[in-house]
């Protein structure tokens, strides 16, 4: 009876796998516990204090690139948020730019034009085979070799390229500008309604409307019209050279531009390959069947090829977004004040709380990455086929 019971546990498929899994989880938990205990013991023995109380201490350093106000008197916790916002800013801008370049290059790689196709090919092979860190440093160095402030290149009236960044006029909103913003918002809502109405009308009458053109015009011209009606409630504060630097206006720092170019140009090369493979993966028969039905090429692309290509493109595209986001931590190399550079670097050096800070930084990246994954997976589900096609 006893042996039978043991026999059953060891040789029964279900109970055996349950047994093994319980053992593995138990051992893993023990392992983590031992490490944590040992670390706590070591820290205490060396007199290194631990805990998260340092977050409320004054940081004592400045951050040049910031989306929220920050001075050296602010806390480490605020420094964390400044860094987090900078990381998110470069990740969002980078993914956006990389997607645009990537889709363009991917389509050009399939073009019948020999010259364009091969330029795209050289671009892809060059950028994806050189480490991204070197590319970031390259673009940053180029930006640093732009003329000094005194010899700034003025591209348009009030727009200056210098080795300290890209200076441009900053907008000053006056009374009545909120109406322009509201009209913009209303135009967007109206365009969504118009799209619905025209779609319905197409379903009823068969007549096709240039919905995209109508709505673009609506969204662009409504705010402009309101802007003039309100008596142009917007002024610009142009940067003016005073002494050794520009006064007024706003600036995009070379560190940000270097990161943006480096990350997006590098990642776009991978995205373009993904896009190319996605389009190729749509079988020739799909195109032939659409042509045989009399569909014109742009409709074949829009209704048949792209919806099917997305199915193949989305999963690897997600990986590329994740890569770009994590690679943004390379900002430390050129002094871009992201999470790793400020909080994960300077705060760490000043407080010595390496474990706490690294844990926080790692968990933050994990959260950002999982969020991207989550949304991309939801989107991915919406483009997959039903059945086993």
């Amino acid at each position, binding site marked *: 009876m006893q042996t039978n019971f043991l026999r059953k546990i060891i040789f029964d498929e279900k109970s055996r796998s349950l047994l093994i899994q319980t053992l593995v989880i138990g051992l893993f938990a023990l392992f983590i516990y031992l490490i944590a205990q040992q670390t706590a013991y070591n820290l205490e023995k060396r007199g290194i204090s631990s805990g998260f109380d340092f977050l409320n201490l004054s940081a004592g350093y400045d951050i040049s690139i910031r989306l929220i106000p920050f001075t050296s008197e602010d806390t480490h916790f605020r420094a964390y948020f400044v860094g987090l916002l900078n990381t998110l800013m470069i990740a969002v801008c980078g993914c956006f730019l990389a997607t645009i370049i990537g889709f363009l290059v991917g389509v050009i790689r399939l073009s019948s034009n020999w010259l364009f196709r091969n330029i795209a090919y050289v671009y892809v092979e060059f950028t994806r085979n050189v480490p991204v860190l070197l590319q970031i440093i390259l673009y940053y160095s180029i930006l640093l070799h732009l003329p000094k402030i005194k010899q700034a290149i003025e591209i348009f009236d009030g727009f200056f390229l210098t080795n300290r960044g890209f200076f441009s006029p900053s907008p000053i909103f006056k009374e009545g500008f909120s109406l322009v913003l509201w009209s913009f918002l209303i135009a967007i809502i109206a365009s969504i309604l118009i799209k619905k109405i025209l779609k319905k009308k*197409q*379903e*009823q*009458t*068969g*007549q*096709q409307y240039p919905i995209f053109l109508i709505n673009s015009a609506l969204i662009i011209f409504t705010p402009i019209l309101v802007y003039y009606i309100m008596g142009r409630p917007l002024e610009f504060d142009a940067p003016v050279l005073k002494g050794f630097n520009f006064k007024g206006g706003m600036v995009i720092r070379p560190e940000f531009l270097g990161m943006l170019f480096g990350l997006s140009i590098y990642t776009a090369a991978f995205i373009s390959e993904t896009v190319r493979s996605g389009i190729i993966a749509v*079988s020739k*028969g*799909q195109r*032939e*069947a*659409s*042509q*045989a*039905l*009399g*569909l*014109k090429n742009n*409709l074949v692309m829009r*209704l*048949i090829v792209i*919806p*099917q290509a997305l*199915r193949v493109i989305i999963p690897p595209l997600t990986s590329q977004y994740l890569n770009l986001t994590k690679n943004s931590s390379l900002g430390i190399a050129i002094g871009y004040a992201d999470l790793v550079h400020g909080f994960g670097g300077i705060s760490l050096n000043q407080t010595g709380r390496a474990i706490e800070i690294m844990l926080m930084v790692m968990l933050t990246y994990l959260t950002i990455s999982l969020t991207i994954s989550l949304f991309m997976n939801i989107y991915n589900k919406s*483009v997959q*086929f*039903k*059945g*086993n*096609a």
Partner: protein
Amino acid sequence: MEQVIQLEKVNKWYDDFHVLKDIDLSVQRGQKIVVCGPSGSGKSTMIRCINRLEAHQKGHIVVHNTELTNDLKNIDMIRKNVGMVFQQFNLFPHLSVIDNISLAPIWVKKMPKKEAEDIAMSYLEKVKIPEQAQKFPGQLSGGQQQRVAIARSLAMNPDIMLFDEPTSALDPEMIKEVLDVMIQLAEEGMTMLVVTHEMGFAKTVADQMIFMDEGKIVEQATPDEFFNNPKSDRTKLFLSQILNH
């Protein structure tokens, strides 16, 4: 009889491989022509040239008094009147059955959606699977998919139908359901050009049999003559191989 398709000394090369050699063919309205021959003989290429999925390099192809050239207008016009059914069905996997069928009427003929869907349903009834309208191609059997593909073509109301080995990718049990639909179509007077090795179907339906080999039309005859009294030795050999097993 009105002539709807005419091929005159049509030649085509893939690089230096000569696929079609001086093909002459004339199809009258309502005629059903079955094309057979060994693989690589150019039968598929020939019918694919008729709606310009392949371009011929020499000779003339005239469909409904419109000559196929690089002129995109002509190509569009001809494709609107010529339906095609493929060996691999080529249904659009991301669209439901009814959307597969109503897509071209909506976007090419600019038909109201309701009307296009009504037409789609009527053709689904014709191919006897109206209950599958909301399913996706991946959820259907091969035979059902091919019938949807036929309905999709018919929804554009073509007056000529091209069939490129429509049953070659099907399990034996499903071949009949597709052939039944094709026979029904033939009885209704559709002009049909069918590449197939289903000789039973050919005997029932064909007005003319065409045998091709090495890019040439070797023999063209009525089914009666073709099966009972073939003239060329190549045809005799082919028939003995596909009929005696």
